[in-house]
C-alpha cells in the first residue's frame, strides 16, 4: 500500500482534467486544440483507471491494461484526426471551426 498520497487526490485531479477537457472542447475554436482537449479527457480516464487499480484492486491489473489500450486507441484517433485536419487546411486554408461551417440548418 502506498503511504502519503491518498487516492482522493488522484480522483480530484482526474475530475479536474476531465472537465477542463470538456470545457476546452466546447470553447476552443482551433481544431488542433479541440483534439488536445479530447486527449485530456482520455488521459483523465487513464488516471482514474490506474488510481483505482493501484489503490483498491492491486491484485489484478485490469485497470492498467485498459489504460494501455486507451493510450493506443487515442494515438490512432489522433492520427486519423490530424490527417483530416491537414485536408481541411488544404480545402479551407484555415483550421478555425468558425470558418469550417458550410453546412447549417
Amino acid at each position, binding site marked *: 500500500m502506498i503511504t502519503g498520497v491518498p487516492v482522493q487526490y488522484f480522483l480530484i485531479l*482526474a475530475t479536474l482534467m*476531465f472537465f477542463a*477537457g*470538456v470545457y476546452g*472542447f466546447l470553447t476552443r475554436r482551433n*481544431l488542433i486544440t*479541440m*483534439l488536445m482537449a*479530447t486527449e485530456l*479527457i*482520455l488521459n*483523465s*480516464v487513464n488516471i*482514474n*483507471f490506474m488510481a*483505482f487499480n493501484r489503490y*483498491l*484492486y492491486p491484485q*489484478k491489473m*485490469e*485497470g492498467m*491494461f*485498459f489504460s494501455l*489500450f*486507451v493510450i493506443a*486507441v*487515442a494515438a*490512432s*484517433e489522433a492520427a*486519423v*484526426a490530424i*490527417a*483530416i*485536419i491537414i*485536408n*481541411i487546411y488544404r*480545402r*479551407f486554408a484555415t483550421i478555425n471551426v468558425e470558418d*469550417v*461551417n*458550410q*453546412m447549417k*440548418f
Partner: protein
Amino acid sequence: MSPDKFLIMRHELLLTAVVLVVLIAEVFSHPDKKGKIITLSVICFGIITALGFLPSAEGEIFGGMYVSSGSRLMMKNILNIGVMLVFLQSVDWLRKAENSDKISEYFILLISTLIGMNFMISSGHFLMFYIGLELATIPIAALAAFDKYRNNSAEAGIKLILISALSSGILLYGLSMIYGTLGTFYFKEIAVSFSNSNLQILGFIYFFTGMAFKISIVPFHLWTADVYEGAPINITAYLSVISKGAAVFIFIIVLFTVFPVIIATWQKAIYLTSILTMTIGNLFAIRQQNLKRFLAFSSISQAGYILLGFIGGNQLGMASVIYYILVYIFSNLGAFGVVLAISNASGKENIDDYNGLYHTNPKLSLIMMLALFSLAGIPPVAGYFGKFFLFTAAAEKGFYPLVIIAVLNTIISLYYYLLIVKAMFLLKNESPIEKFKSSMYTRFALGLCVAGIVVTGFASALFEFIRNLSFGI
C-alpha cells in the same frame, strides 16, 4: 485452448480474410484494372454473408471476453445483409473516374468497421467492447472524409472524429467509475455485484451519454445532420443504418445484461430521451430541403421509436428492436439507394429536384415511395409491423403515454414522408431528372430492398425466430 475453439469467432475471422484478400489484390493488380477489385470484393462479401447463416457453435473464448450466442449471431447476420446492400449500391459510385484510385481503401475501411462492430456485439468484457467501438468509428471518419476535393466531406469527417472521440471519452469516464466501485470489467461480474450506489449511477449516466452520442439520441444529435449531409451518400447510408444498428444492438445487450439492477433508473432516462428524440427529429425533418439532411433527421426520429423497445426490458422488446433494425435496413437503404442512383446520374440531391420524377423514372419513384411508406409505417409494408411490435413491447409494460406520443409522432412523420411522394408523383417540373438506367448491381440491390420491405413484414416465422433467440431481463 484448442484451435477449433477459434471457429466460434467465425464471422470476424472470415471478414479479416476478406480484408487480406482485398489488400493482396490491390498490391498485385494492374493499375488499369483496379475496377476488378470491386467485383472481387462484392463476390467475397456475398459468400461471407451466405456463410454467416450456417449453424455455429455458441460459447465463450478468451476467458469470457468474447461471447457468442444465438441472438448475437443473428445481429451479425443482419448487419452483414445491410453491408452487402451498401456494397452493391456503391458500385456505380466507385466506378467513377474520381474514385478509381481509392477502390480498395473503400472496401478495406468499411469491412474493418464491420469487424469492429462484430467484436463489439460479441463482447463480454468492457475492454473488448471499447476496442470494437473504436474500430467501428475511427475508419468511418476516414470514409466520411473520402471525397478529398469536396469541402463538405472534410467537414463531415472532422465533425465525426471529434465527436466520437469526445463521446468515447465520456463513456470511458463512466466506465472508470463503475470499475472503481466493483473492480471488474466483465459483464457477468458487474451484473452480479452491482449495488446501486450513487457513484455507480453517476458512472452509468456518463456511459449512457456516451452511447447516446453514438446512436444520436436528442440532445446529443447535433452532429448527425452535418455528418450525414457532408459524407458521400453510401457512407451516409452506412452510418445511418449499419453503424446505428450495431450501436443499438450492443446498447440493448449491455442494458439487459450488465445493468438490469438499475432498470428503474434507465427507464426514466430512456422515457425522456425517447420522447425528445422522436419529436425533435420529426420537427426538424419537416423543414429540410436536402434529401440527405432530411433522411438524417428521419433516422434520428427512427432512433426514438427504437428506444421504445428498450424501455420494457422484456423479451418482446429485444425481439422487436432486432426485427425493426432488419426492416429499417431494407427501407432506409431502399431510400438511400434511390437517392444515390439519382445523385450518380444527375448530381441532384434536393427535394425540389424530385418534382415530376414519376414521369421520367417510374420504377425509381415507386421504390422510393415503398421505402418511405415503410419508414412511416403504413400497413401493408414491413415498417408497419416493425413499429407495431415496438409499440406493443412498450405497452406490455404499461407505458401508455409514451406509446400515444409515439403514435402521434408517426402521424407527423407521415406528413413529411408524403411531401416527397407528392413531389415525385403530383408536382409538375419543367426540367425533371432525365430518364436513366443504372447498372445491374444497383438494380439488384434495389430489388433486394423491395423484396425485403415486402417479405419481412409478412413472414411471421421470421419474427418468431428472432423472438426465440432474444432474451429479457
